[in-house]
């Protein structure tokens, strides 16, 4: 909070912006079709109508503008959502091992969304909701799952870590079973693709998805930023935050709603991607500070950066096939999770960062 620290925050954020920009360009150029930055620029100019379309380039242009670009942007947005979500949830649960994949949020969202995909088109409840049915049902599922885990693990305002993990396992199992069953009985081959829900993928990215996630993220993130100070105060505990003039109960509900809204929307588009929300805030806390005024924007940037890099790897590791991104995030994230758990065991539940 000091002036020096603030300058340090700005430097770190600028560095993350620069790295993200580089990663976006590399990701947009890599894959089955490769594009040079000059080519990308000319396609962008043609797409925007600044320069006349070149007909012999139509295939490359369409691949870039209709497939590659939305995919890159959706991966960045999803990473930002998951990074910020991990930061919010760790702040609310006051524990560094919480993230949407573990606390049931993502699985609940996947179940809600798959309900619409499999049954929704014909069922009476989803039809009037139209194109909002998927995000709305994803939100309902995610919110119910998160609240259930929170209520079970929080007694007297203090979250018990092991209860949290066990409740998360149970809720994830139930939601996973529900999603699996729906995929099994589904007639639509798209909806039968169970790996989509469990491991996450960006192959289905389109501009509609980009816009929906971008709008949701921007609104939720802007509202969350206003509570950065309250999240700091919550580090001291709910009573201490109340004594500093905050209303912790309303803060928790407000942030859980915003967080769930972001995660549900992203999950409805790309499926469940675990561990990003866990690792990103952890790295930032170790490197810099837990001041949420820094942590929230930084976790959006680092989350986006990480997800873009993972998506490039998913496209390049076994060409021409693609690895589901969730496999890569799990391979990197699960060991980090186990490591944090071991540190926590060794040093007691608090203060292990020292």
């Amino acid at each position, binding site marked *: 909070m000091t002036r020096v620290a603030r300058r340090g925050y700005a430097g770190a954020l600028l560095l993350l912006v620069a790295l993200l920009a580089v990663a976006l360009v590399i990701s947009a150029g890599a894959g089955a079709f490769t594009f040079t930055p000059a080519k990308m620029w000319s396609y962008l100019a043609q797409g925007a109508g600044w320069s006349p379309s070149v007909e012999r380039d139509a295939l490359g242009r369409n691949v870039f503008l209709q497939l590659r670009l939305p995919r890159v942007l959706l991966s960045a947005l999803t990473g930002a959502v998951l990074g910020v979500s991990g930061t919010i949830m760790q702040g609310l649960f006051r524990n*560094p091992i919480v993230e949407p994949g573990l606390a049931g949020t993502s699985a609940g969202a996947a179940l809600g969304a798959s309900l619409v995909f499999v049954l929704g088109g014909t069922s009476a409840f989803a039809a009037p909701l139209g194109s909002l049915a998927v995000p709305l049902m994803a939100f309902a599922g995610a919110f119910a799952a998160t609240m259930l885990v929170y209520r079970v693990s929080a007694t007297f305002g203090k979250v018990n870590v092991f209860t949290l993990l066990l409740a998360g396992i149970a809720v994830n199992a139930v939601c996973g079973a529900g999603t699996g069953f729906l995929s099994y009985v589904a007639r639509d081959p798209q909806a039968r693709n169970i790996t989509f829900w469990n491991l996450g993928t960006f192959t289905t990215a389109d501009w509609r998805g980009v816009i929906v996630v971008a709008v949701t993220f921007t609104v939720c993130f802007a509202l969350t930023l206003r509570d950065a100070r309250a999240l700091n*105060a919550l580090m001291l505990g709910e009573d201490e935050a109340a*004594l500093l003039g905050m209303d912790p109960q309303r803060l928790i509900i407000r942030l859980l709603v915003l967080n769930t809204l972001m995660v549900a929307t992203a999950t409805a588009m790309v499926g469940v991607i675990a561990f990003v929300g866990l690792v990103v805030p952890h790295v930032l806390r170790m490197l810099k500070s837990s001041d949420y005024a820094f942590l929230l924007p930084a976790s959006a940037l680092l989350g986006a950066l990480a997800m873009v890099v993972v998506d490039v790897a998913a496209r390049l590791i076994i060409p021409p096939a693609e690895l589901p991104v969730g496999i890569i995030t799990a391979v990197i994230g699960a060991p980090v999770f186990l490591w944090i758990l071991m540190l926590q065991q060794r040093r007691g539940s608090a203060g292990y960062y020292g």
Partner: protein
Amino acid sequence: MDKRDHAGMSSAADLAGVVLSRVGWVAGGTRILDDVSVRFRSGQFNVVLGPNGAGKSTLLRVATGLVHPSAGSVTYDGEPLSAFDPQRLARVRAVLSQHVELAFPLPVRDVAMMGRYPHFRRVPTPRDREIVDASLALVGMSDRAAQPYSTLSGGEQQKVQLARVLAQIWTDDAGPDAAQSRFLFLDEPTSSLDVHYQLHLLDVARGLLEARCTVVAILHDLNVALRYADHVVLLDGGRVAWNGERSEEIPLSVLERVFRVKARRVGGAGDEGSLLQFTL
């Protein structure tokens, strides 16, 4: 109370400080506080004593506004607690709890700065920084300001929390509440501290009394309590068992009954030197 002789001042002076009138608190069908009326005077070091389960913590939660009493009322300088909005209350009332742990790494200065959260909107003003530096200096933690809070010992962490609380109700703050008196509550602040830190912390709290501050402390060590107290409230079973200004006058029979021990005074006769000794 030297203002008594000024006509019209007496009523205001009588209301200065924290007044609980006929406060009751019921939780799960059990009466935790039963018709408690006490007055914690401004400029005094008020100590609340009592055995485990006597209702001390509940009394503090009611008196600080964390919970609304199920019966009765609380006033600060005559103004009902319910009339304060949370932000304004947070600028004049602070609570030091037993032990605050942080699950995440944060520099000591950032922790102390949280005390200024009720005072600034987005970014701390230079004045907020000055106050945080001054409060860290007051508790002797200036040289640790940049260190992570979690690396400090329990006693040092409690000093930082005291600095945060002092910054919250900083008395020569020229802010909008400059004319308001301050209210400091200490909830068993010394239970995890060694004797040096205990006395240091209580001395700092005593030092605030000159600046129109009301201090209310729950303490466990009866000898420490009686040494610092200007006013003692002894709670037992949710009721006031003894209430008075001359702590050395608490009858031994009352202490023996409330704490279920045998008590005797040793050392100087009723004077500062005397200590209480307890056996089962």
